């Protein structure tokens, strides 16, 4: 199973096309926040951009923290999400070490489900779907 990777953020132009696409296609919203990927400038635009996105941990601390099983481990990294089970406790977001889960104003969590729908919207190929390298068993940042 592949996961989304923001491998080439040095090229990012800050267009937000990726997050707008995720919000629109995955979460059925017009937004640059309620999305699996969110673009931040790292202190003014001259310093470039960062992506806030799920790194696909295995085991995933967010899934472990979820009291209802709304978040469960996805094979190959990251989580599977069943929103029907979500009670908006915010435990997943609190547990995520890289702040990849966004809670909206009502406490609904948004996380990347590694579906790849944002990828074709990036004009600079900053993001891609990739197989996670075999040797990564804990965490998952080593290929970027």
């Amino acid at each position, binding site marked *: 199973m592949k996961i989304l990777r923001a491998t080439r953020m040095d090229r990012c*132009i*800050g*267009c*937000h*096309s990726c997050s*707008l696409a995720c*919000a*629109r*296609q995955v979460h*059925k*919203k*017009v*937004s*640059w*926040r*309620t999305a699996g990927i*969110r*673009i*931040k*400038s*790292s*202190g*003014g*635009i*001259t310093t*470039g*951009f960062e992506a806030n996105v799920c790194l696909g941990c295995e085991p995933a601390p967010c899934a472990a923290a979820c009291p209802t099983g709304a978040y469960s481990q996805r094979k190959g990294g990251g989580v599977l999400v069943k929103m029907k089970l979500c009670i908006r406790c915010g435990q997943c977001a609190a547990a995520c070490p890289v702040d990849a889960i966004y809670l*909206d*104003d009502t406490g609904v969590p948004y996380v990347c489900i590694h579906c790849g729908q944002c990828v074709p*919207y990036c*004009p*600079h190929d900053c993001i891609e779907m990739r197989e996670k390298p075999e040797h990564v068993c804990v965490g998952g940042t080593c290929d970027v």
Partner: protein
Amino acid sequence: MSDAAFRVCIVHLDEGKGEIVSFGDKNLHIGGSGLAAALFEKYGLPNESWSHPDQPLIFAIGCLTGYFPLMSKVVAGFKSPYHDQYAESHAGGRLALAMRFAGYDAIVLRGRARLPVAVHVGARVIETKDANYLWGANVFTTGRVIRRAFPGASGHRSIMRIGPAGETLSAYGCINVDTFRHFGRLGSGSVMGVKNVKAIVVSGDSDLPLPGPDPKAYGKLFKKVYEDMTATEMMSKYHNLGTPGNVIPINELKSLPIRNLQQTTDPDAVGISGEKFAADLLIRNAACAGCPVGCIHVGMLREQFQDEHRFQIRQVSYDHELIFALGSMVGVMDASGALALMDEVEKQGLDAMSAGVALAWATEAYQKGLLTKEQVEYDLAFGNVDAYKEAIWCLGHGKNEFYRALAQGAMVAAKKFGGEDFACVLGQEMAGYATGETFFASQSLSFRHSHLDTGAYGYDQKEHDKNADKAVKYFVDDERERVILTSLVSCLFARGVYKKGLLAECLTSVGLPDLAANLDKAADEMQRLRWRMRLSTGYEPEKTSVPKRFLEVETWAGKMDPGYLDAVRAGYIKAIRELGAPRGES
């Protein structure tokens, strides 16, 4: 209250309070240009000076902002310190989407803060914070401090700020938007300054449901529009060299204003060509939020500040207009030198075009002995980057009587010190296209005195039959088409894709079928409303003029024809009077 009303956030600066109002009608005012003019009609004081505390400073987006790609601009509407008439300026950056996601179609600042403040507007916040400590700070410092003073929402907020020029009330103090974009022309920065507003932070901190009756169809249409935008030649035109790619072709057409328009071509222009910038200085691109094209070209300015190889580097965005104004027009035919001047102008918060053209006039006036060394202080000479850097500081700070006059416009200074014949002013300091009579006539009279009001600079290159009626009809019709885009508010670079049929589809998909069906009528009304506001604030097109220098220009098409120029101007003046006639008389 109709469903098609706009949601407007009014900030009352004297009380530090906000007010949310339902205003106007999307089916009539469209947004952007139209909405700003309508808001000015309601809140503006046509007979009071631009600096009256109750004059509104309006920022407006359109009904497709955030919903489709390249609907990425904002229109500012205000009474201009340049000519004390109603004016418009356009900017991109993150502001348009931040406003959409803050939940406002327009933000209006009214009143005047007692002491300098920073204004913060979001979906659940309207506040003013003391910014007295920032008064006097340049644009870069202001950005850094404001980011610290308003933490959070990084990437999802927009920061507008002014530099010293806006505080000293220069007629062309600009508003810097998100470091690389500007409400440049006609002095909106000084409108912020006179209101004691150093910065405005807009947090785009809410989200919206998918629009329209059929979200699936909307998603499909978005995809199609996105693919068209990224597949077209436009992508490469604005993405590759960007507008600086114009420098060489315009120089070859003998239409590049050089050394205060004493020349229109020079082999040295290769030193400031788009190709040269791209090869030597370009380090990255940036985009307005919601735009995959990414036309913003950022160059690296590397300056040695001390012996023993001590360098500082800075990122400076460049464009054709800046290269002309702070390059060829002041005889700086070296890309790094031009970039250094852009950096200074940016710091002071001046409009780059007006600053460059004003300094070009000052240089010639100094050469001709109309100005003394005591007045200009530095050795203004074409190509002298160091002197210009100092002069730009003086201009931003209004250092002495001369610089204070120059900061009110090249023509204001020329009236005082002499040299009106060679002040390159067409309503405001000229744009970078000396293409011929139609363009000069258009810029001298048109609404924003901008090369983007109509495509006249292109018309000069295509049409040579010197038919004044045809040219005037072209101005009026082309402006009306552009009013659709500046009301929606699309980036004008997208005009090749956003044809009317596609816009109608987009409007229908977001639930505005009536506007889709009546776009032409609405555009016509908004074109008239804009002119009405302009004339009601004292615009007398008959009083504009084209200084002698423009008639001395020789382009690839030959010498200027004053008779044709006058005929086009006379026809256009008549058309403007008709367009702007009080309601019921048109």
